């Protein structure tokens, strides 16, 4: 079924691109925590260079540094020399993965990632269970009992961090085709995603409606699966490739003006299918090229087309958190703010260090709780300094992480996707995001 993916190679040119100036150091969250050169972008690049040249083996410290990195890509934004950091990192991670024995626990985690995200029905079933668990009050009981704290690892925190489950996944509540309101100007496809599908179903619905109201015929292709980013980022290109192939079959890309994504992490990974699978077979390479060319982040797309003016007043003070995979990976910072500023009555206040990672970073908050929560604290105190009542965040991982951090601090600030705010400003009014 799946086509063979090949380990991405890196060239000397890519490694030599780094002229070790250090301009990226002050933007690196892990360097800020340790102030140690080896946990800086410049340090990691040098380690990868030594590894690639055969002068350094895959030691425990090497593995540790490669995994300590958040892959937030702030260093890429900072780097004047245009170093493609994440490719170097992903190369190293693939090497680490294929060279190290995994612990039983890691294997379990991997099995879960494989099973859950490659078989949407299991994820949906699990989501139903979680939904009732959360709704029934059982969750509060369990959390309050503190029983999870007695369990190994970070189960307690993991439970508190688990996403709020939507009553029904977006892929079920949305029809396969939503007609444009008024004149049809574009035909677009919408990614429902995996985590997004079951825990942020409303965001996907809001996106579909905002698009339809602005002249888009919105398709929600059945048979679509997880984009594969969670697997790709930990170096499992095999599974990521299998997922891509299924998405390539589900989305008939030539029919669409754009494939719209509402989650920053998925969007950035899908835009990079073309690089990730560049070394794969010709067929897959071409498919990836065509797919990536159509992927658009929802904010990016909306900012490119003429929009109807939202009419409803939302008298809110909002601050915007830049998800790493929007700001650093896709260089999208202006458009979400632009959309928020269109909303009548809404005051957008700047967030200090808005492009600084919140510590969520895929599954990083579960694998590296300490640095993740140090970064979260920094994010939360920055949010507190703005006095905003709403934080707009366009990535499910960030939203879960930040909401958790705010709650732990006893803050009332809500975390909302920018598109949900926009939807509300367009919308009928009875429903709050």
């Amino acid at each position, binding site marked *: 079924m799946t086509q063979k993916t090949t380990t991405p190679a890196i060239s000397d040119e890519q490694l030599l691109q780094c*002229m070790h100036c250090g301009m990226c150091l002050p933007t690196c969250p892990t360097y800020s925590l340790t102030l140690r050169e080896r946990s800086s972008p410049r340090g990691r690049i*040098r380690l990868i260079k030594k590894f690639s040249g055969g002068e350094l083996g895959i030691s425990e410290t090497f593995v540790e540094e490669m995994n300590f990195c958040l892959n937030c890509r702030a260093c890429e934004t900072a780097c*004047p020399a245009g170093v493609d950091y994440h490719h170097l990192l992903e190369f190293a991670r693939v090497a680490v993965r294929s060279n190290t024995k995994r612990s039983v626990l890691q294997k379990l985690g991997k099995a879960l990632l494989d099973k859950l995200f490659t078989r949407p029905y299991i994820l949906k079933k699990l989501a139903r269970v979680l939904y009732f668990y959360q709704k029934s009050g059982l969750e509060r009981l369990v959390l309050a009992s503190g029983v999870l704290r007695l369990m190994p690892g970070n189960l307690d925190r993991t439970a508190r961090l688990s996403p709020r489950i939507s009553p029904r996944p977006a892929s079920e509540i949305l029809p396969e085709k939503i007609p444009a309101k008024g004149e049809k100007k574009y035909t677009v496809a919408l990614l429902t995603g995996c985590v997004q599908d079951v825990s942020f179903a409303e965001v996907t619905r809001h996106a579909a409606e905002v698009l339809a109201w602005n002249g888009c015929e919105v398709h929600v292709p059945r048979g679509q699966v997880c984009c594969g980013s969670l697997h790709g980022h930990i170096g499992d290109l095999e599974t990521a490739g299998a997922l891509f192939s299924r998405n390539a079959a589900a989305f008939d890309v030539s029919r669409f003006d754009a494939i719209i994504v509402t989650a920053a992490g998925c969007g950035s990974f899908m835009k990079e299918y073309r690089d990730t699978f560049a070394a794969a077979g010709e067929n897959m390479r071409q498919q990836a090229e065509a797919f990536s060319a159509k992927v658009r982040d929802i904010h990016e797309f909306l900012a490119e087309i003429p929009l109807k003016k939202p009419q409803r007043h939302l008298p809110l003070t909002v601050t915007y958190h830049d998800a790493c995979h929007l700001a650093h990976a896709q260089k999208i910072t202006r458009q979400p703010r632009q959309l928020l500023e269109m909303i009548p009555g809404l005051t957008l206040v700047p967030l200090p260090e808005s492009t600084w990672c919140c510590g969520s970073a895929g599954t990083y908050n579960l694998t590296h709780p300490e640095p993740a929560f140090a970064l979260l604290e920094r994010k939360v105190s920055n949010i507190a300094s703005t006095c905003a009542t709403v934080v707009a965040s366009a990535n499910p991982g960030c939203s879960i992480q930040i909401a958790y951090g705010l709650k732990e601090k006893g803050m009332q600030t809500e975390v909302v996707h920018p598109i949900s705010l926009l939807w509300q400003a367009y919308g009928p009014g009875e429903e709050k995001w």
Partner: protein
Amino acid sequence: MSAIIKALQEITGNDRVLTSPEDLITLGYDGTPVLENAPLAGVIPADAEQVSRIMHLANDSGTPVVPRGSGTGLSGGSVPVPGSIVMLFPRWNRIIEIDEANLTAKVQAGVITADLHAAVEQRGLFYPPDPGSMKICTIGGNVAENSGGLRGLKYGVTANYTMGLQVVLPTGEIIETGNKCVKDVAGLRLTDLFTGSEGILGIFTEVLVRLIPRPAASKTMLATFDRIEDAAESVSEIIAKKIIPCTLEFLDSTTIECVEAYARIGLPSGLAALLLIEVDGHPAVVAEEAEQIVAICKQHRALEVTLAADAAEAERLKTARRAALSALARLKPTTILEDATVPRSEVATMVTRIREIARKYDLTFGNFGHAGDGNLHPTCLTDERDAEEMHRVELAFEEIFRAALDLGGTITGEHGIGLAKKQFLRTSTPDAKMELLQKIKASFDPNNILNPGKIIDSHPRCETLHT
């Protein structure tokens, strides 16, 4: 485990001694191309007392010590010598005091330059030295290199703001030089001797800096040219008209394109040169000088002269300029930048000479720099794996240095000698002066254990540290 490492651990505690290959590899370089060497160990002292004990240990065992700030140096100053201990100051980032009555600040040596800027500017004060690397380089490194920056033309360099130091001597004694007095002639001016000493005369633990009031107003301008000579002549004319802008930076076409590719500030393509100019001071004077500068640039056939709309736009332009060196690295695998400096009246001649030399050796150069103070950064875009081309690069730089010296200039204006320019220093310096440098080094560091082999070879017969 070696005895040295054990002894270091006894002084600082185990977690402050770094020995893993991954740590050592990543302490082996600074911002200088090609140079690299892993040390024996890294050590993070907690205070001056520990620095002193480490120096005693180093003397007793004959182990070289290399101080390292953030490793952004461009002459190899903090690149470890074989078998050395690299001394690090990562948590030495405390601003100890800002004295508004005396206009001074006392900081630990590891304070990041831009953090000091932010702290004093909050109080209406100003610390002018602003190297392009200011968001990451340390004050200790700045003092050791006597660093300049974009504001050097009007405000001078780090030495003009260093009033005093706490220094651990190579032999372990802790001394203080200078004080908060504006006037002080007691003894030799040791502070000045330490400033620019590239980590070979002592280890700075605290620095007392001079502050000035923050300028009330500023205006930033961008002038574009389609002939490089027009830009150079505008620079000379501005200075000749007795206007001293705070910043007067020059970028040539190659640099402009790389900077634009990174910063996307909307520069048109096909420009031959660009000047980034800032005037600051009293609002009335600022307005008048800005007007004069616009007129001068226009007289010299500037294509366009635009004023930054607000402080944020001015900052964007300056940030883009600060990225110039690293942005040039986009084009070729290896970027070798030089620092030749001439009296400011000779900038136009020097720019032309550099272009001729680049053509002669068939090399690609980007050229930019602090044109207003004669400090240019001709940067060769090359490939370290191509031995034949690297040979031509060497020849070209030799000629550039000779040209600078012939025009009454120097081989380095702000990046220092370190390892990278040692040979040029020796060949361009009379023996008597070289000997004096060696005597000074020997009197501070009789065992030659502090950053040995940088700037000069202390034991002239021992040539082991050649690069």
